[in-house]
């Protein structure tokens, strides 16, 4: 079935005055063109004409525009916010996309073809054909070491990254470790240093040589960048100070019992006790169900 035919067979369009997926076709085409360029130059930030969305800039408009420009009627959509399908940001964006496209949605990572995410990568391995779209607040990894945009662009163009390395070196001299928590800078395809968006360090190794396409959209900053499948993504590290992921030794999820997932820490106000649950709620539920810990 062609795209035009499948659009015609959509259930009754509630918002006939808008194009399919809200954004007008010309704008979609522009976003797709910049996305193709981003895929062709892994890790390079491509400027794009960020459109006005019915969500404030800084609330996921970059990711939203990518999703809307790529999604088709046959897609299966999943939206998460820090691993959760049920947080306000995720629910609102999902509802909005459902409303303007009538696509089917899911919480199951395996079934989704397009996943929009804020600050997490789902625990389950992403397969060939899936697209993960990140919402990015600050696309420029060098912003902390050089405030001038013109200068950071020159630094990227000439692969002049000594100042980023110097920043890490000074961190080690001062604190004997690299103190970056999230937004850990990575080298993509051996060429560009890239901001992976504020995902935890835990997720960084899963960007390396992935099977899925990773797209990054920064609506406020008007940038798109990408990691195509099977691209090297290496966190910056020194020979004698290696990159580390968060340490969850001896900690398990209290809901599903998983031992190898990224965990959220919860403190019980009454008792002061610390408990841990999976940050990826859909995965947690699936794992719990498989272990017979949940009914229904």
């Amino acid at each position: 079935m062609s795209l035009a035919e499948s659009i015609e067979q959509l259930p009754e369009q509630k918002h006939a005055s808008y194009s399919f997926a809200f954004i007008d076709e010309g704008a979609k085409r522009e976003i797709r063109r910049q996305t193709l360029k981003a895929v062709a130059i892994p890790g390079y930030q491509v400027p794009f004409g960020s459109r006005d969305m019915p969500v404030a800039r800084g609330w996921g408009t970059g990711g939203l525009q990518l999703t809307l420009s790529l999604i088709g009627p046959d897609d299966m959509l999943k939206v998460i916010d820090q691993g959760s399908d049920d947080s306000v940001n995720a629910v609102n964006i999902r509802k909005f996309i459902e409303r303007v496209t009538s696509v089917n949605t899911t919480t199951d990572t395996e079934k989704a073809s397009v996943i929009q995410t804020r600050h997490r990568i789902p625990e389950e391995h992403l397969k060939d054909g899936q697209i993960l779209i990140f919402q990015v607040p600050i696309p420029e990894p060098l912003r902390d070491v050089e405030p001038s945009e013109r200068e950071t662009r020159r630094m990227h163009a000439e692969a002049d990254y000594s100042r980023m390395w110097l920043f890490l070196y000074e961190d080690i001299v001062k604190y004997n470790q690299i103190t970056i928590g999230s937004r850990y800078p990575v080298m993509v395809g051996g060429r560009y240093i890239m901001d992976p968006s504020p995902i935890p360090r835990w997720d960084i190794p899963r960007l390396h040589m992935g099977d899925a396409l990773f797209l990054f959209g920064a609506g406020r900053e008007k940038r798109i960048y990408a990691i195509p499948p099977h691209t090297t993504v290496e966190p910056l590290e020194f020979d004698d100070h290696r990159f580390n992921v968060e340490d969850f030794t001896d900690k398990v999820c209290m809901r599903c019992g998983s031992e190898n997932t990224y965990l959220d820490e919860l403190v019980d106000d009454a008792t002061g006790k610390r408990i841990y649950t999976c940050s990826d709620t859909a995965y947690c539920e699936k794992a719990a169900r498989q272990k017979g810990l949940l009914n229904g």
Partner: protein
Amino acid sequence: MLIKNPILTATNLTKRYGPGCAKCLEQTGPDYGRNQCPVCGTVIACAGVDLAIHPQEVLGVVGESGSGKSTVIKMLHFDIDADDGHVGLHTGKIETDNRVRNQNVLKFSSFGKRQIRNAVMGIVYQNPHLGLRMNISAGGNIAERLLMAGWRNVGDMRKRSAMLLDKTEVPISRMDEAPRNFSGGMQQRVQIAKALSNEPVLLLLDEVTTGLDVSVQARVLDLIRKLQQEMDVATLVVSHDLGVIRMLTTRTMVMKNGRVVEAGLTDQILEDPQHPYTQLLVSSALH
């Protein structure tokens, strides 16, 4: 004595600020006592400068303010783009030499120039603010140069930084302190340590002692002479101070109004100056 190829050969180095016209070069220079073209108003910072630096030698460039000597050193370090000229390198570092063989490095992309600079050059500026990051530790400043050259081991970089700071007589106990807390002489010594960190083939010194008081000047000069001999690095010294030129250099070029007016052995130039301007310069010296 074996005559070696010069490590750097520059011909016809020219830099102008302004539109430029056909009369620029013939209407300026020491003969007219000006470097601004009367026809189009273009300032000729320097024109037609030829020089060669041989391995291990120290070449001096002397002249008054505005004579174009700093422009020459900045063009050689690619800090400013030359309008005309040819610079060839023969550094003895195989990787660099393979890249630059028989080519004009002034025509390289800024990426290519940076690679050459990182591999074979070191520079010390008159103003430490140009050469150092004042908010980053002294050790970090030296490490930056090493990071540019591809070092990726913190322990090794700290060892090398400590060794260089020790050589330049900066207390190692202050290695993790930022240079903004240092005295002028100490900042200059950190700059020297940074310039030497990647074992350069060519060291560029741009008015290194200007602005320091005399006793500190003497110590910095002593240090430079000692390190220069120890490391056998070819050096270009730019200064308006004949004392510095006398102490450090073996050959000297005298510049005025953007042109070289005299060149030769330093002793010869200081004892028997030929050009009227050089004679004036030598007789104006305070001792």
